[in-house]
């Protein structure tokens, strides 16, 4: 099985150190992602492994042979590189270009044989570009050109494949197709695939393990789910993101949050509790969060969109199982949350027998003297599936002093007013 070992290398551009003490080992059958912000040295690492930039310290060993001692041609039979883009200024056809991948196997005075053609053809069929065989590369689209370059790399029959953002120019369908192909080839032929990714989700989906670089050093290395974590992403990329496992594909995916607004906002004193459902509270949750308010939410059932948003945003939520009424437990927990809040907002969710208790919670809030805002963008009549009970509750809420607003925009000014008043009377 092929083995690539990087032994503590340092790489320099002139006198500037770009990589420091990079060390890791990969074996055939693995797809390893190389991740990191711009300037962290990802491309430099690929260059040092492909014999373009010799490390001043340390060695790169392929099957225990120093690649800088090998002849270029021997390395080319084992290692192929797919660069970010290729510029061809002369009129070669796609087939010509793919056949160049066979160079390591063709002697100086020899020419291409039928075997070379067959291998090139196979590579082009795998990457779905055989129909472009006679087309000039300069006339192809970016995506087609990229697939030509990938086919050329495959034609080298390598045991190690290095890719620098292999799918950046491709349409989504080709992205998946190519990555699936690479994954299949990797497993089948026990290749080592080292790929630089900017797209986390792609890396998350296809890589077995990953190397996270920052400022020329390895920050983290290991299986993909240990590398792609909220903390690592925060530490290296300085953004807030959530890493979750996708319910359908079971692969990780990364959801970045808008960091700039969150960070620059002063946290406010007011605590808000949202009673919502059916997706009606989602945007408001986000807006309030961006304005610095602390939020809690409930009761939401776990299949509700608002629940998912709340989880994503990190908002404490009282949740309950779907397809059943709100349990007494959940209701009590909800009330607890309400008691600790300064304001309660009731969005214009649809009400049915299942979530009636939420209306009751709103009434409780008013009884306790907590400011309650009721949003009625869509009139209650259209949302009442309780046979009139909800409408009645709304009238009661009005009577007890809830603030009714007709659109969500009106909420923020009200909150600000409240905040000013609260400056004098603080509630812990």
């Amino acid at each position, binding site marked *: 099985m092929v083995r690539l070992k990087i032994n503590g290398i340092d790489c320099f551009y002139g006198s500037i150190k770009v990589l420091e003490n990079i060390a890791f080992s990969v074996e055939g059958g693995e797809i390893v992602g190389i991740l990191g912000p711009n300037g962290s040295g990802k491309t430099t690492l690929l260059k040092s492994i492909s014999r373009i930039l010799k490390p001043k*310290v340390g060695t790169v060993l392929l099957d225990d042979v120093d690649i800088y001692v090998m002849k270029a041609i021997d390395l080319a039979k084992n290692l192929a590189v797919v660069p970010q883009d290729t510029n061809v200024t002369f009129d070669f056809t796609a087939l010509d270009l793919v056949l160049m991948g066979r160079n390591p196997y063709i002697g100086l005075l020899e020419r291409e044989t039928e075997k070379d053609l067959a291998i090139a053809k196979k590579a082009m069929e795998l990457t779905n570009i055989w129909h472009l065989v006679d087309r000039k590369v300069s006339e192809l689209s970016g995506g087609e050109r990229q697939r030509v370059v990938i086919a050329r790399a495959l034609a080298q029959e390598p045991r190690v494949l290095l890719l620098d953002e292999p799918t950046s120019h491709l349409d989504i369908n080709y992205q998946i197709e190519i990555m699936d192909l690479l994954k299949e080839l990797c497993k089948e032929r026990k290749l080592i695939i080292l790929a630089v990714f900017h797209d986390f989700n792609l890396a998350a989906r296809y890589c077995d393990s990953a190397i996270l670089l920052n400022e020329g050093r390895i920050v983290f290395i290991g299986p993909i789910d240990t590398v792609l974590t909220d903390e690592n992403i925060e530490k290296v990329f300085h953004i807030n993101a959530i890493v979750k496992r996708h319910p359908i594909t079971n692969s990780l995916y990364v959801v970045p949050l808008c960091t700039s607004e969150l960070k620059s906002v002063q946290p406010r004193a007011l605590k808000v509790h949202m009673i919502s459902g059916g997706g009606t509270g989602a945007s408001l949750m986000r807006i309030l969060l961006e304005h610095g308010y602390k939020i809690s939410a409930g009761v939401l059932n776990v299949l509700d969109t608002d629940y998912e948003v709340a989880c994503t945003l990190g908002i404490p939520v009282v949740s309950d199982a779907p397809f059943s009424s709100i349990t007494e437990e959940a209701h009590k927990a909800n009330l607890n949350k309400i008691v600790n809040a300064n304001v309660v907002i009731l969005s214009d969710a649809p009400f049915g027998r299942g979530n009636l208790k939420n209306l009751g919670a709103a009434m409780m809030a008013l009884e306790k003297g907590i400011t309650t805002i009721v949003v009625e963008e869509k009139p209650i009549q259209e949302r009442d599936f309780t046979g009139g009970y909800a409408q009645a509750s709304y009238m009661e809420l009005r009577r007890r002093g809830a603030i009714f607003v007709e659109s969500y925009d009106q909420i923020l000014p009200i909150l600000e007013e409240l905040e000013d008043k609260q400056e004098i009377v603080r509630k812990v």
Partner: protein
Amino acid sequence: MNKTKDLIHNGRIIQPYKVMNMEQKIIVIAVIMILIAGITGVAIWQLSQTPEKPTGPISVIDDANRNVTIISYPPERIVSLAPSCTEILFALGLGDKVVGVDTYSDYPEEAKNIEKVGSYAAINIEGVLGLEPDLVLATGGIQLTVVEALEEPLGEIGGAIVVLYPKNVTGVFENIKMVGKITGKIDEANELVANMESRIQEVIDKTEDAPRPRVYVEFYFNGGYRSYGSESMVNEMIYKAGGINIFAGFAGKHLSTSDEAILSANPEVIIISKGAMAESCGLTPDVIKSREGWDQLSAVKNDRIYEIDEAILVRGGPRIVDAIEELAILIHPELFS
């Protein structure tokens, strides 16, 4: 040794660059020096070769140090590749035997009607061979490449090529005599030379005792002013005509000079050598008078700016005598009335 120390850094092994070490550098320098020495040596050896004495019926050593045998003697068909050669041929009465001349051969009149074969280094070799000459006269310097190209093929059809490249007045006399020898016009040649010598001597006698005015001859300007140096025949001719070239101390044939040099030399006589080059830049006495600061020159103040036909001045042929006589009249008008 330093090498080991550099190989280990922070406990990890470094790969050093491969640079030429001292030995290799020395070898390269040595090889280059040997090559230079070799080439110089060969060059010196070549230059030091003295030609053997002429052999055979009629042979001459020409001005390019070539030992030439005149295969067809006397030559009936002659081609001239330079105006000076043409004039010598006609002066010796060989005009009717001349079948080809260069484009600049315009004297005497009959020469203008003879078939042209190019000029300078752009001689049409095929054209020359096509005329099936027994003798070709060429000049030296740049025309030598043509001479080399013509030698062999000309020899195959029974012709010979002789180079006339006089360095001084005596050289012109020798050229005339040599042409006489190879064309069977020895008497005519001797007579012509004697005539020329006596006319020149007459001029020398007349002007010898008079003070020598400073003379400046210009043939072209383009930024700098072009004049003649000590190795040019013009220099000698000025002296023989009773003047002194202001650039007599400048080694070289031609030179390019400036206002400062002229003004500090303060020539008493300025002569324009009127030829194709002077015409191309519009060089006339008026132009000279109008030059900034030149009104201070003795020559300009005394209105002693003249023109002379360049052809008689620079062609190393029989008319240099005319040139010397004319120069004398211009330089010493008081002696020739």
